[in-house]
Each structure stands twice: as structure tokens, then as C-alpha cells.
């Protein structure tokens, strides 16, 4: 009855951006107008940008936030006694709060800024890993992990004597859930799993997997680098213990990203890097640590980048993640039908639940040659192993071509891709 007003406000803002009905109809042409680079030409042709899984383009709002920060707000944060520093600190901490709210975290203090998802996983592997992994412990990964969710754990395993176990996926790109269940045991300390595969687009059932891993007594890290720009992501809904992501894939600047962990886990973890800002007291004999999140943010962070990442969160929240997911799903279906009709083209990764990533190969044509010919048409796709060599090994191929979509892509982009792929086939006919 007498619930404090502040409590109500905090709850409503936390769930606000995702539960509110779409504020405006999804108008892709208007959205494209927000992205200056989408108005440019490459090799004399209007740019068709289909490499969003590698990095996303930036809206005016993000570019303006960076410009505004360096033009009007730039000062080092925390401990400055002058107004400019206090304002920069407030803007930086406000960005942290936006990110916390965006993923349903209960407190901004649970968000640590990092350079990107890779640094986030390295932080956890180094800090949590060194404090918690022992010989005989097992870290459970999947066969479809990005190298950035494999190598840090290999390094942690080497340091601690823990071992890595791998959940295989089936040829359609879906994880084998029976094998997952049988790999879980009382030796499993951590499941580190990608939410969405960057190489195949598979959306993994992370909520269900988290529940099973928790039942086995393991903690769960979700690598949300490929999901957070495209789907609603809620740490409350998933129930995981750690979540990492990059800013530059979610329309923010490069060199930004965040790690979310439960407060108690942060508190129990040793620092990752030492330096200024992360300490409370320093003597030559002993130092004590600042509270989280500052304990994990040694040195001057990318203040302008974090603020601009906050602007990116505002931008996509205003469109609505549900709307973004729906628009991308419709475009994915269109693209898979269009590309699937090309003779000799095979889509790699056909999971029932997919984000808008289309990996493909064309019989007799190396992906790199596909990429170069598309480049000549002003179309940017990625070719190679996508930092997922185990995925390529699974299919026995050296590389794929990959078109990865964002909400600013259109059917026209897909049509131009399909037409250019016909040209690729003509060249090699």
C-alpha cells in the first residue's frame, strides 16, 4: 500500500523501454536517414552494408554525442572538484544506468565498462577464473563459440588446471541439448555460451540452458555480443550470472562494451587491472579496493565512448527492440528465400531460431572471390572463418561468405545482394 515512490519509479523505468507499445510505426527509410554512412557510395555504387555482425553503423545521435562530449563536456571523471568534471562524471554514470536498465539489471553498479566483449570475457576469465577454478574443474563451452569465448578460457584453464568441455552442434547449427545435459556434472563450474552465433545466426536457448547449468551447480556467462543489437535481452529473464557485450555492434562507438555480473559475484572477484580509480587506499605495503563497479575500471575509461554508447541505447530503445527483432526476422525470411533460390548456393546454419545472419557458400567459388566481386558492386559482406574456426571445421570448409543484417537494411539491399551473386556466378561460369 505504502510502497515508496522511488521504488515504483525505479521498477517502471527498468522495465519501461521494452514493455511500452511501439512509439511509432517502423519506418526503415526514415531510420536510414539517421545513418550518414548509408547515404555514401563505395566504388561508385550506393553502399549496401551487410556486415553488421562484425560491426554496426552509427546513427547521428551517437556521432553527435561524441562530438558534444569533446566540444562541451570533456574532463576527467570522478574526484574532480570543478563543474565540468562533475558534469562529465554524471554523464558517464548516466550512461551506465541506461545500460543497466536496458538489460534489466537491478543496479548500475553491476555494470562494468570495458573495451568490448572480448575484454569483458578476458576480465571474467582472468578475475573470476583465477579465484574460482581449480584442477579438475570444468568449463563448458559450445562448438559455435567465437574465438573470444574460447581462448580466454583456454588461458584460464592453463593457469588453473581446469579443463574445457565442448557442447557440439548439429548440422543445422542447433546445439545438441542432450549432449549438453550429459556434459553437465558436479565438476562443471561455468557454462560460457553465446546467445547468438555470429557465424550461423543460431539463437541458443540460453534461458533453458541457464536453468540446467544452475541445477548442476554451475554459473552461466552469456556472450550477448550478437544478440543485444537485435533482440530484447533481459538478464532477469535469462537468469544468467554474467553477461558481456560490445558497444560497437549495437550502434555505439568502437572501444566500448560492458560486463554485467551479480553484485555478490563482483564483490567476491579480485581486481582485473590495477591503477587509478580502482583503489580506495594505496601504500607501498598494501592497497585496498574501491567499490564495484570502480574496482574493475582502472585508469581513465573511454568516457566519451561510454556516453555515446548510452546515446545508442536511447536510440534503439526508442525504436524498440521488439520492433527491431520483428523487422529483422521478416527481412531474414525474405533474404533466405531469395538467396536460397540461387542455384548452387547453400546456406550454412539453418536453425529454427535464427537471428538475421546468413552464412553461405557457392559451389566451386571461394568465399573470398564472392566478397571481392560484391565489393565491386558496393556491397559489404564478410568472408572467412568469422573467428569461428571450430564451426568451419565442423562443416569441413575453410570459410563462408556471410551477410548479416541490421534494422536499417531493406529488401532493396537483399535484391542487390542476390543480383550481385548472380554476377559472381557469371564470372566463374
Amino acid at each position, binding site marked *: 500500500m505504502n510502497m515508496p515512490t522511488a521504488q515504483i519509479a525505479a521498477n517502471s523505468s527498468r522495465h519501461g523501454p521494452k514493455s511500452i507499445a511501439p512509439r511509432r510505426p517502423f519506418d526503415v527509410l526514415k531510420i536510414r536517414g539517421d545513418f550518414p554512412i548509408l547515404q555514401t557510395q563505395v566504388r561508385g555504387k550506393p553502399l549496401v552494408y551487410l556486415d553488421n555482425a562484425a560491426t554496426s553503423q552509427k546513427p547521428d545521435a551517437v556521432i553527435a554525442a561524441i562530438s558534444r562530449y569533446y566540444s562541451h563536456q570533456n574532463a576527467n571523471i570522478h574526484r574532480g572538484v570543478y563543474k565540468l568534471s562533475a558534469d562529465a562524471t554524471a554523464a558517464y554514470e548516466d550512461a551506465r544506468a541506461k545500460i543497466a536498465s536496458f538489460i534489466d539489471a537491478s543496479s548500475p553498479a553491476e555494470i562494468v565498462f570495458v573495451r568490448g566483449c572480448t575484454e569483458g570475457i578476458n576480465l571474467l576469465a582472468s578475475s573470476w577464473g583465477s579465484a574460482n577454478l581449480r584442477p579438475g574443474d570444468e568449463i563448458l563451452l559450445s562448438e559455435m563459440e567465437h574465438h573470444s569465448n574460447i581462448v580466454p578460457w583456454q588461458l584460464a584453464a592453463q593457469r588453473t588446471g581446469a579443463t574445457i568441455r565442448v557442447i557440439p552442434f548439429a548440422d543445422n547449427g542447433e546445439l545438441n541439448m542432450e549432449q549438453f545435459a550429459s556434459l553437465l556434472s558436479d565438476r562443471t563450474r561455468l557454462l560460457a555460451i553465446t546467445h547468438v552465433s555470429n557465424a550461423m545466426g543460431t539463437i541458443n536457448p540460453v534461458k533453458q540452458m541457464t536453468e540446467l547449468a544452475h541445477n548442476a551447480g554451475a554459473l552461466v556467462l552469456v556472450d550477448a555480443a550478437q544478440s543485444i543489437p537485435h533482440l530484447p535481452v533481459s538478464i532477469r529473464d535469462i537468469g544468467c550470472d554474467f553477461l558481456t557485450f560490445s558497444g560497437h555492434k549495437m550502434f555505439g562507438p568502437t572501444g566500448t562494451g560492458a560486463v554485467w555480473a551479480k553484485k555478490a559475484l563482483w564483490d567476491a572477484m579480485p581486481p582485473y587491472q590495477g591503477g587509478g580509480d580502482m583503489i580506495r587506499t594505496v601504500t607501498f605495503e598494501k592497497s585496498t579496493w574501491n567499490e564495484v563497479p570502480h574496482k574493475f575500471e582502472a585508469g581513465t575509461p573511454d568516457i566519451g565512448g561510454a556516453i555515446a554508447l548510452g546515446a545508442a541505447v536511447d536510440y534503439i530503445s526508442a525504436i524498440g527492440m521488439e520492433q527491431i527483432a520483428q523487422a529483422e526476422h521478416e527481412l531474414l525470411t525474405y533474404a533466405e528465400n531469395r538467396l536460397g533460390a540461387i542455384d548452387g548456393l547453400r546456406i550454412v546454419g539453418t536453425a529454427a531460431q535464427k537471428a538475421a545472419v546468413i552464412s553461405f557458400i557457392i559451389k566451386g567459388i571461394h568465399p573470398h*572471390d564472392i566478397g571481392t566481386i560484391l*565489393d565491386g558492386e558496393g556491397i559489404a559482406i564478410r568472408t572467412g572463418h568469422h573467428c569461428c574456426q571450430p564451426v568451419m571445421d565442423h562443416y569441413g570448409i575453410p570459410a563462408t561468405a556471410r551477410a548479416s543484417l541490421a534494422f536499417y537494411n531493406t529488401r532493396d539491399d537483399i535484391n542487390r545482394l542476390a543480383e550481385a551473386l548472380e554476377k559472381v556466378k557469371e*564470372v566463374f561460369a
Partner: protein
Amino acid sequence: MSDLRDLYQQTILDHTKRPRNFHELTDANHRANGHNPLCGDKLTVYLKIHNDIIQDAGFVGAGCAISTASASMMTEMIKGKRVAEIAPLFENFHSLVTAPVDMEPDEQRLEALDKLAVFSGVREFPVRVKCATLAWHTLQAALKDVGGPVSTE
């Protein structure tokens, strides 16, 4: 498509589809493996060298059109050449594929390269230089026969 036609010339496509000397040499006395991690290209170059003359050359492997055609045309070109001629030839080839786009190709170099001049289009696509030069780096390793695989990275 003009830039692309420069890159994917008919000669190159012909060598991609029907690579020459595409086999192991059972009597090779020099060999090396090459790997381009960027695109996953892997090839092995075999040489039969006698009295400092490359008497026979062959290659096997899997790669993109540019790297396959480059290896095919390279093996054709080097057969019968003295070992000492290879380094200047590679230097010419490397200059050709890395020259600034707005610079006229050097006539003497083009002449020395003969058929390999068709690779001049590669310079429009700097990320493909490694594809064109993988076979040559591997050839250099084979001449030294250093044993381990070479990499473009």
C-alpha cells in the same frame, strides 16, 4: 564491373578452373607449405632443382581464384629458370600487385613478368595481395626448404 574485370581476367579464370602443374612431384627435392589464415588458403609447392635450375614445379592445395591462378601461372613461369632469377621475378611481381593505383606500370617490369602481368588488377584490391603472393612466399620457402609451413600473416 570494370575494376573487377581487371582482377578476374579471362587468363586468371582459366587458370583457376584448370590449374596447371596441379599435382605433387614425387621426385621433388624442395617443398614447402603455405597458409593464408585470412581466407584459409593452403598450398604446397614442390620443386625439382638440379644444377641450380628449376627443372620441374608443381603445387597442390585449395584456395581462392586469385591464389590458385597465381600458383598455376607461377609454376609455369619458373620451370627452366635458374634459382637466382626467382628473387628478382618475385620482386617484380610484388611491385606489380602492390603498386599505387594511379601509377603507370613500369614497362620493363611488365615485360619481365610476361604473362604474370595479368595480375596488375590485384592492386585495386589491397586485401587480395596476400592471395596473389601466397604461392610466391611458399616458393621462396621451398627454395630454402626451411621445413615448416609459411604463412602470409
